[in-house]
């Protein structure tokens, strides 16, 4: 009823490889796009600036990690380090006087170079060994940041970003910064949506499933792994730079610590490996829920007149948040994206469940 499948036949390859095979999906995407565009007029500046904006930038970053982990199947535990490379090189480029467009590009490229450099070394090993090698990269980057004041910006390690500007236009308003984040997230999303219908995307999936089987099919798995690392590092680099330019306004090592790497990985896993809409959900859960639950518990305790001490107030939300992750992964181990998929599959044929495959 909701999806109106009747009359949808794909009779040629072009039609069968369309981005949205069902008009309802396309309409939903367009609706969400419109919501995203209208958000500054719909929600208050607090939600726009402290929830929507970081959510979108982190989603772009997590999509990049999903490319290498969800699509190409390479576990990456040093993703925040790659974001740091992008952020720091972009900020330094902008401080040097380059326009932000180029600074972002430099951030992306330098992250891609360093990310794939590590990949070269890392790709001789697989699985958990690869995971540990990428973790080592994280620690190398942490060390570099805390030991080179020239990079990290002085003895207290905070590097101020120049005011963000695009096409010579300084962007300082909440709305403007939101649109920058929105635009970048949209670009990455469109890229990821299209990835699965390109040869590159199929090759990555082949490598993920079994790399020597892929090799037998003529897919050079080493090459595609490098491509996956480079592309995802590029996305990480630009996302890191945008995060600093539009949200933090300065770069500090703690913003890209190992805890952040784990967080991004958690976003991808809770959201669903290889799922785009799932990544959006995953980021919302990992990034925003702690703060939201914190506020709810504090207000709930106030409303109920409970005299909790500040420490319990801080720890209850953490417990709730942890429980939430476990419950979600127990209900659906494939993540929030799959949960959405289940609902969609159900509604697709509703109310004629008997047609379900």
């Amino acid at each position, binding site marked *: 009823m909701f999806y109106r499948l009747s009359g949808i036949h794909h009779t040629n390859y072009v039609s069968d490889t369309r981005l949205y095979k069902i008009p309802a999906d396309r309409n939903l995407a367009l609706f969400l796009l419109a919501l995203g565009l209208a958000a500054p007029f719909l929600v208050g500046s607090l939600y726009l600036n402290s929830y929507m904006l970081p959510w979108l930038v982190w989603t772009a970053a997590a999509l990049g990690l999903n490319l290498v982990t969800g699509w190409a199947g390479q576990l990456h535990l040093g993703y925040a380090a790659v974001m740091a490379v992008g952020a720091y090189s972009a900020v330094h480029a902008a401080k040097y006087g380059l326009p932000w467009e180029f600074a972002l590009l430099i951030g992306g490229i330098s992250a891609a170079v360093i990310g794939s450099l590590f990949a070269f070394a890392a790709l001789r090993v697989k699985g958990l060994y690869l995971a540990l090698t990428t973790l080592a990269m994280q620690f190398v980057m942490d060390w570099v940041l805390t030991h080179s004041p020239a990079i990290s910006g002085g003895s207290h390690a905070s590097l101020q970003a120049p005011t963000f500007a695009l096409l010579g236009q300084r962007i300082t308003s909440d709305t403007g910064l939101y649109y920058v984040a929105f635009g970048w997230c949209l670009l990455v999303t469109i890229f990821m949506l299209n990835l699965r219908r390109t040869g590159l995307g199929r090759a990555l999936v082949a490598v993920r499933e079994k790399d020597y089987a892929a090799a037998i099919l003529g897919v050079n798995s080493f090459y595609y792994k490098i491509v996956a690392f480079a592309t995802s590092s590029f996305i990480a680099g630009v996302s890191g730079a945008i995060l600093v330019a539009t949200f933090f306004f300065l770069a*500090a090592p703690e913003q890209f610590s190992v805890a952040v790497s784990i967080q991004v990985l958690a976003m991808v896993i809770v959201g669903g490996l290889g799922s785009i809409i799932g990544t959006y959900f995953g980021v919302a859960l990992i990034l925003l829920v702690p703060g939201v639950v914190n506020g709810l518990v504090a207000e709930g305790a106030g409303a109920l007149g409970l005299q909790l001490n500040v420490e319990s107030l801080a720890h209850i939300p953490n417990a709730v948040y942890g429980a939430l992750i476990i419950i979600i992964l127990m209900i659906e181990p494939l993540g929030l994206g799959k949960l959405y998929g289940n609902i969609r599959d159900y509604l697709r044929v509703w109310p004629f469940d008997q047609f379900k495959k």
Partner: protein
Amino acid sequence: MPSIGRTLALALLATGLLSASAKAADPEPFRIGVCYDLSKAYTFATPQVSQAALDLADLVNMKGGINGAQVEVIVRDHGNEPQRGIECYSKLSREGVFVFDTLSTPVSLAILPRAMKDQRILMQSLVGRGDAVDGTVFNWVYPVGPTYWGQAANDIAYIKQLHDGDLSDVKVGFVYFDYPFGQEPIEILKTLSGKEGFELILYPVPLPGSDQASVWSKVRRDKPDHIISWMLGGAHVVASKEMKRNGIPMEKYISVNWLNEVDISNIGAEAAKGLKRGTNVVGGQDIPLYKEIMTELYDKGKGNGPVEKTRDVFYNTGLAMYSIMFEAARQAVSLHGHPITAETYKAGLEAIKNFDANGLMAPITVTASDHGGGGRTRIEMWDGATWVPQTDWIAAYQDVVWEVVKESSSKFDGK
């Protein structure tokens, strides 16, 4: 007559409590946004500090608030994550809060650009970037208390006192966490070593500081006369064990202010005898404000947490931080009256002169150019039961400290 007066007062109080319209006539409450890390890295200090904040707020309110305005301390957890700190700041600042404290360096750094832009007061005693004491650059940031640079300089001044003003053949070891918190004083120590002629030996400790064996065997070989330590929490305990193993007397150890009674009891009260720490607050419980809180709140069962937590020097640190904030509000009201705004509060802060919260801390004088309040500290020694002061409140080498501050703050673009 007094009975009539009392009845009148009671009646007034009753109407005040009952009628909402009467309440509206009261000045607006003065609120402080306390965005703390109560669940991750800073939990060694935040519970004590926030308990002190709540206790002090209760005491101030019991005595009639700030010229009639109640004070309110809003404590929220940010888990030491910069984005959650920003969320806490944005949320509370939209609710009208204009004074914030984070007690976390990463979060303080993340909030600083916003506070500067929104013209909100960011208190950041003992955390955040040290050059923010330069009020000419950081208009809205008030790191009242010593910077780590100043603290290290005062430690050297203390050592100089011990050696009768001649440091030429003295060896000073600097044991520090090998990340920005610990690295910060190195520059100033190097400058001072050039100036005073003492030999400075650096001993970086890799995080989290649980393995210091190689560091202290090196210290044993180098035989420094004094050891300045820039570490936190359990790392002090590890250090003390290694010192014992290497036969280094505890008297040589001068810690940064982040060492408390929990660490002392982990080291062992007897074993810690002779250990020293730099501090801007008086240690121990023999403090008028502390005693007042005990009689007014804890003896009546109205404390904001377990009484054991108040027997901690970080509780005193919290009392000092919030005494300053409430004093600034008082000054703001006496200068400009109600309601307190960000501007009048700023003026209130800068009107604080020689304030020591009745013998609780080093006297501070905040000015428009010096937001640190003078940066005085003193050295206290653990005598097995309590802290014994070793020096007066000192702020040494101010020229050198401010040179470093200016050098660093000049790179900040306030626009």
